[in-house]
């Protein structure tokens, strides 16, 4: 397989890999590193790629596992200090204004979700995969995914309603 063929296969979903990585790792730099790592792993095994039925689903599973490993590893213990797109609503006026911006607020709510739900919301609501695909990627059954998704949506909705009505965080 030539580099051009590989790029053709990878192009459509490399952004999805990156977004999932960023959802889990939060830091943009960490997510970029993770994406690069995933793509290089795929490239290293590019002879086997043709055997995979669904390279995209396989890559998403790989991304999920890789990011969860990163989060568990010792190195990631200080991840929260490292990333630069971390927003602290209390420090400056500008950040307070930003925090009031509800759209921004959704991403913060999502940061607080458990990892499983984060992944599911990311895959379903943002990347718009159907349940069968998500089930394959996460190695879960569809019912469990639906339950998790509805819980996650409920949490987001409630927190959003609170901020909307009272203007508090």
């Amino acid at each position, binding site marked *: 397989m030539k580099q051009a063929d590989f790029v053709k296969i990878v192009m459509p979903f490399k952004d999805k890999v990156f977004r999932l990585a960023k959802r889990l790792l939060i830091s943009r730099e960490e997510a970029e590193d993770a*994406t690069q790592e995933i793509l*290089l792993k795929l*490239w290293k095994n590019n002879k086997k790629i043709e055997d995979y039925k669904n390279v995209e689903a396989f890559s998403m599973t790989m991304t999920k596992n890789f990011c969860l490993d990163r989060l568990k590893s010792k190195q990631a213990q200080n991840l929260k200090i490292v990333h630069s797109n971390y927003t602290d609503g209390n420090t400056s006026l500008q950040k307070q204004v930003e925090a009031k911006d509800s759209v921004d607020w959704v*991403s913060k709510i999502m940061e607080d979700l458990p990892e499983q739900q984060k992944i599911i919301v990311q895959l379903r*609501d943002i990347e718009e995969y159907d349940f069968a695909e998500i089930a394959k990627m996460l190695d879960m059954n569809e019912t469990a995914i*639906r339950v998790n*998704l509805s819980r996650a949506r409920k949490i987001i909705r409630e927190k*959003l309603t609170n901020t909307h009505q009272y203007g508090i965080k």
Partner: protein
Amino acid sequence: MVLNNIEKLVEKYNNAETTLKEEAQLKAYFLSDDVAPHLEHYKPMFQYFSNAKKEQYTKDVPLKSNKTQLYKWISVAAVAVLMLGIFIPNWNSGPKTLSEYTPEEQKLYLETKQALALISNNLNQGLQGMNALDMAGDNLNRGLEKAHYISVYSNTTNKLLKN
């Protein structure tokens, strides 16, 4: 779109029972400007989802591993060829006797030897011819010596004449 329909969809959405198509409908509705006030709080959620989908991975990935490996092996092969080139001629340079060659080669060798012997014979004959020249040179030298005697003789006669 009928508000009733949207409310039903939202209900289904909250229970995670909507299909992708229905979710697309919801998204379109919440991203439009006329959202019913009691559903307003869903708006940022869908806005965020559609914004988040726009984020892109912009870094380049260095995909070179295969090429560099090829170059590595080419250089290894080149070194191997060089080493062979240096060592192989030394292994084969031991002297061979005539009997080790094939009959044709032996014949060729003998013929060449004969031809070379012929040439050297002729050369020797030529050398003998040269000997004659050598003798002529000798005679000339003798003649010169004789001439010297003559000059000595004339010197003495001159002296006698003066006296």
